[in-house]
């Protein structure tokens, strides 16, 4: 086992560099803790903030446990509804990460497929796809998300919209992120498609879809992975922004954005903890994911090393 570890530590380049970068390790630890906390939230929190029966309005605005008037039941205090802030934050992180991951996955599939095809076929198809991407890029991400949400609100009956709110939010965020993947995939495909191994496959007469999926795609995963991590941070932030603006997740399922939104009203009246703790959680998560993205970029692009 020990010899195996010694060998792998040297032979696997990414692991080797990872073990030499304390910043990347710290970021990975922070990301790991957030994900674990979100994943096991029901097991490690005292109450369920989504369950209206589990909290009492009389407990509202309790400060953190260590300060005057704090209640040992609520480690970092309660919000205006009397919900335990610690539980709310973990459940909120869970929601934020879920929406972030789903929308990035959706954007990655859509953007990569369009980008690789545009890069491989070129010509008119490329022109059309990339002009659409340009239009998309000229709309701010928040505007796109608001637009999708607005259209969904108009089309769906109110009840259904409430139920589908998370899906609408995911689609809205994905639509504003796919362009990053499409552009990166297209540029990398341009480079790969003129390489001789692609020509070898073309000479044989392989189907274009097989060439794209088997030959090109595995070779361009590196840059796409970097975009993926960076965009995950963007997606989480976007979700928080939309929730903060009140068009995001439903009010009875607090995400980090809604928590910050409610907290900001009480910031200057002394109840600082309602805004500070969710914000700190959001910031540390975003920074951790961004640092991981930086690490991947450095590892996958030898020129930056």
């Amino acid at each position, binding site marked *: 086992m020990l010899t195996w570890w010694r060998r792998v530590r040297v032979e696997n380049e990414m692991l080797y560099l990872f073990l030499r970068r304390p910043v990347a390790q710290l970021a990975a630890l922070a990301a790991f803790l957030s994900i674990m906390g979100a994943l096991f939230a029901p097991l490690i929190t005292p109450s369920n903030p989504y369950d209206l029966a589990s909290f009492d309005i009389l407990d509202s605005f309790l400060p953190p446990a260590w300060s005057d008037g704090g209640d040992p039941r609520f480690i970092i205090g309660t919000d205006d509804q009397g919900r335990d802030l610690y539980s709310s934050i973990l459940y909120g992180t869970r929601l934020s990460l879920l929406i972030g991951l789903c929308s990035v996955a959706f954007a990655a599939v859509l953007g990569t497929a369009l980008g690789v095809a545009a890069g491989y076929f070129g010509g008119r198809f490329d022109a059309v796809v990339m002009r659409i991407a340009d239009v998309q890029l000229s709309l701010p991400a928040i505007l796109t998300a608001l637009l999708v949400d607005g259209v969904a609100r108009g089309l769906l009956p109110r009840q259904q919209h409430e139920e589908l709110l998370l899906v609408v939010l995911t689609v809205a965020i994905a639509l504003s992120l796919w362009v990053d993947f499409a552009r990166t995939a297209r540029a990398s495909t341009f480079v790969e498609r003129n390489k*001789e191994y692609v*020509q070898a496959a073309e000479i*044989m*007469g*392989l*189907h274009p879809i097989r060439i794209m999926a088997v030959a090109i795609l595995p070779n361009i995963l590196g840059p796409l992975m970097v975009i993926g991590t960076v965009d995950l941070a963007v997606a989480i932030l976007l979700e928080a922004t939309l929730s903060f603006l009140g068009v995001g997740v439903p009010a009875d399922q607090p995400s980090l954005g809604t928590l910050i939104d409610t907290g900001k009203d009480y910031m200057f009246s002394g109840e600082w903890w309602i805004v500070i703790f969710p914000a700190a959680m959001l910031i540390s998560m975003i920074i951790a994911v961004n640092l991981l993205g930086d690490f991947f970029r450095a590892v996958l692009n030898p020129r930056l090393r």
Partner: protein
Amino acid sequence: MEDLLTLRDLSVVYPTRFGPFTAIEGINLTLQKGEIHGLVGESGAGKSTIGAAIMGLIPAPGYIAQGQVHLDGMDLRALDAKAYHKLRGARISMIFQDPQTSLNPLLTIEDQLVETIRQHTDQTRTQARDKAIALLQETGIHDAEARMAEYPHQFSGGMRQRVVIALALCTEPDLIIADEPTTALDVAIQKQILQLIRRLAKDRGIGFILITHDIGVIAEITDSVTVLRGGKVMEHGQTAQVLGRPAHSYTRALMAAVPLLDKRLVRFTNIMDSEPKLSAPELSWKVAGASAEYASDWLLAGDRAQAGDGPVLQVRDLDVTFYGNRPFAFGARDGFKALQSVSLQVDRGKVLGVIGESGSGKSTLAKAIVGLVRPSAGEITFEGAPLPLGRDRARTHPARRKIQMVFQDPYSSLNNRRRIEQIIGEPLRFFGLAKTRADRRRLVASVLDLVEMPQRAMLKYPHQFSGGQRQRIAVARALVARPEFLICDEPTSALDVSIQAQILNLLKDLQATFGLSILFISHNLAVVRQMADDVAVLRRGQLQESGPAEAFFEAPQAEYSRQLLAETPSLAMLSATGHG
């Protein structure tokens, strides 16, 4: 006379994650004024590291572990970074391989020369300009005063290299390190540049360290030579002596591997074992029932017409035109004619060598035959039937299997993310040549055996192999399709000479065993001489001459062919020029 440059017991070490790597070890070297000293060796021999060590520019984290570097008696290792910086340029200059990248494309030649001169001396602009003109004239640029205002891209490759040399001369250096100065150039221009270097050494008394992998270049202009391998000196001395009576077996093997222009060998002999030694488990890993015999039986079992059935492939009046963008929306597009009415044929079981310099259209010819490029006119006939051109060729057309190609660069012709088993198995799968997965494994292992690779290679990825091994894998991939006709586009030009000799041997063996018809493309006449039965010479997209190889090399017909033959450096030059 005092030595210009002495290296004593020089070692350079790079710490890597696999432990310290000794790039060069115990190098001793002396250089006089006006002497040209060649450093020759294959890739990884440490030639460029010696150059970098003299310049004090070893890339971090590498460092000089021990030894001394003296220039005119001055200890260079004792200099601090600032003093070294002043010395570089002032006393030591450098010429790089690629003139494309060693000049700043956004500045005129005048700007670059004048700036360099004024950096190192207190001359006024006018004085510096006069000097720049004189230097350009000295390096053989006509009409220097007018051409100075031009940008690097307006010069041809050879002219650009002259400008680079003029730039190196700006500061009147005592020592110039030339790192593969002619590798990126065609033979005709290579010869002119080498003559220029010779003249500068003689007239100005500059000492040159000439780094090259080409023993022909060494034979042509160096006075003394050091043969390197794996960072160690194999042999050194006067060029005539080292190349004339090589004492070390490596030098002998290196010279035996150089294809000769004046003689066709059946096989290259006396080739050293240059691949890393394989461990026993590596060799004993076998797929059940797989062997080289199985592969050759299987390949021979395919129905194949016998030799002498007439030409396999005929190309008639082939035109290929590449179009740029339209100058304006409805304007006629500018066309560049890559091939103009080229006609040639490949006889069954024979090798046609296609010779041409860069830009002659030889790769375009290959691409037109395999259908990657659509010809604008002409006809290609394969086994008596016309081949659909370009995209008109259906994906299921039988020629897709019967015509296979081996590419120039083994580093880009294999998909780095797939195992060798998948890479070689792809044609088997696609053409339905193997029924079951077990069948496929057995064939892949057998074909690897046939191209002299261990069977276990099928479990690895391309990046785990050297260039020569990759090229063997590329040949194996072409073979498993059971081709009738093989196109080799510069299959050895990215490889070291000893590896080149091995690959050429392999191709010769396969050709003899399976009676393949081969279109062999190369810029290297000596390589074509070793391989081809017939020869075709291309220049700027036009066929200059074609005919049987022996007759061509004895007495070429076209003026251009004679010129090409005369300019190719060869070991024979050594006795012809008689210097050193």
